[in-house]
């Protein structure tokens, strides 16, 4: 059961925010369609929460505009935007019951009492908190409080839901459960959601599209598989798990395929960026760099560390030119042994430009 989204499109046009000389968010351009689930991903300080606060109307941007269905939101205060916001610390009203908390937004809209009661009951059922309506937030567990926060935000049937790291205070198991819940609610209610997180796995599992941010600047915007397999730059690559960054020099380039040499190693892979010569950074996932595997690229290392990972082993070692590489092995490898790590060209990335 999927409802139709209440939002047609949200456009962020050069949205930026600085605090004095410090740039918290630099010119973000993003177009969100109704029904999309967007994740803003990055470490703390990358500007993701700033972006969210600007969209929510809690801070005023210092540059750029936000358009909701073609209408500018400039000058519209928070209370008039009608977005549902779920805060990292939940921000539940401690002096009100769960029911009163959820009803708050509806009461601000002056809905008649019976309507309010009906909608609150609906919301409670949606987040599976039916029996707890008359408890106070301090009597609830973290997971329950979080669900109250979500119910409070969606009961007002907002065109847009903003979530600021809502799961970061829950333990791992609960986090996984709530993740499924959030995705389900998003689909069932036809919501449009912007979700802020530093947890890569969470972002990938929830989002239709991701925005990877670093120090205020958007590094890449795209669907999860795009970002996962074709990161736009070394930073994003590293963020999604690419390792083995070796500085090399690009010798030949033919379209997207390139050949690089450096530190006694040769590699052929996908080139990302402009230029057909000059310095490049190598990037290969440890999962793709396999002991005794197949692939055009071969690197020899002397193993100095082995980690057990259940299905396989992670092996690390230095090449004879002192470069550290990290790869995978199906079986354990004795420390001190020399092994050859191989990776196919389509899993090797060569980034031109700075790291």
């Amino acid at each position, binding site marked *: 059961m999927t409802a139709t989204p209440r939002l047609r499109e949200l456009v962020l046009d050069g949205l930026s925010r600085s*605090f004095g000389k410090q740039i918290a968010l630099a010119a973000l351009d993003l177009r969100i369609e109704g029904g999309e689930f967007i994740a803003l991903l990055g470490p703390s300080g990358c500007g993701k929460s700033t972006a969210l*606060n600007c969209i929510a*109307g*809690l*801070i*005023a941007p210092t540059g750029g505009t936000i358009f909701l269905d073609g209408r500018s939101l400039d*000058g519209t*205060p*928070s209370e008039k935007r009608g977005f549902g916001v779920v805060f990292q610390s939940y921000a539940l009203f401690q002096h009100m019951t769960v029911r009163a908390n959820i009803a708050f937004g509806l009461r601000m809209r002056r809905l008649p009492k019976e309507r309010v009661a009906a909608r609150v009951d609906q919301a409670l059922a949606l987040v599976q908190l039916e029996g707890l309506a008359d408890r106070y937030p301090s009597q609830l567990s973290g997971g329950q409080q979080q669900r109250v926060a979500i119910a409070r935000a969606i009961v007002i049937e907002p065109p847009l839901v903003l979530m600021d790291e809502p799961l970061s205070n829950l333990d791992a198991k609960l986090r996984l459960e709530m993740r499924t819940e959030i995705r389900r609610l998003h689909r069932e209610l036809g919501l449009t959601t912007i979700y802020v997180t530093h947890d890569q796995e969470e972002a990938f599992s929830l989002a239709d599209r991701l925005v990877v941010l670093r120090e205020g600047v958007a590094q890449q915007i795209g669907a999860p598989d795009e970002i996962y397999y074709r990161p736009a730059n070394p930073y994003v690559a590293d963020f999604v798990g690419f390792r083995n960054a070796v500085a090399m020099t690009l010798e030949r380039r033919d379209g997207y395929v390139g050949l690089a040499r450096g530190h006694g190693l040769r590699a052929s892979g996908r080139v990302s960026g402009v230029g057909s010569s000059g310095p490049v950074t190598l990037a290969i996932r440890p999962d793709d760099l396999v002991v005794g595997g197949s692939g055009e690229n071969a690197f020899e290392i002397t193993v100095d560390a082995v980690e057990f990972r259940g299905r396989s082993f992670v092996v690390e070692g230095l090449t004879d030119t002192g470069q550290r590489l990290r790869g995978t092995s199906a079986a354990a490898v004795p420390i001190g042994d020399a092994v050859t790590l191989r990776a196919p060209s389509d899993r090797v990335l060569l980034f031109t430009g700075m790291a």
Partner: protein
Amino acid sequence: MTVIARRPVAASPLAWLAWGFVGFFLVFMLALVAAVLVNSLGTRWLDHWLPDGYTTHWYGDAWREFGLTSVMLVTIEIAAAVLALSLLIGVPASYALARRSFPGRGLVMLAFLIPLLLPPVTYGIPLATVLLRHDLGGTLTGVILANLVPSVPFVILTMTPFIEQIDPRIEAAARTLGAGTATIFVRVLGPLLVPGMLAAGLLVLVRTVGMFELSFFTAGPGTQPLVVVLYYAAFAPGVRASQSIDAMAVIYMGLMLMLLVAALSFVNPTNLVARLRENT
């Protein structure tokens, strides 16, 4: 960091009222001080806007007439003694209360709270009678003891939550590294306690120098702190020039201002009050 987006609208009438009150309050304060200051510096002031002429001789007069040198000494002695003793008695007690929860702890805390909730008159007058019976009436010891009654609980009430905030595992860590109890108190706990003691101590000083009733009931000639001497001068009938009384009042204010500035520069007042608040 973040601020709720504001519309560009003129400040509400309530805002004007609030800032207006603040402004009025401050102006009134300054006017009060100015009135006393001007009078203390005037030669004669009867029927005009300002005194006829200006002089500073009233200050010298007041100093001599009321024997302010010895009065100041007495005030400082009392304040210093109360400060030292209340910290000495109060801080160890705070430590015990902060680190141990024992049956009856609530009752003990209540026992320390009550002297702060009762009017000084209620325990001051009986205390004065008891001191009299034990030949301590009018002595310096008596005044110090009386002023200690609200000061010790005050120190305990502010230091206990302060110590509770210090991680008890720090002491455990020091012990595992070989420190004995004395070392722990002096080198580990001590430095951490200093800011709290400074705050509590300065406030005890301000309260003691400013608290009128207790010293009033227990002091005798020669053991009256400045606040009591000032009161008697203003109240007692006699041919005293109002200018010299005002001069003394200004001297008193100067003393208190120094203490307050010292207190405020070491302590953030809202922090200290917050500790009191958490305890209620």
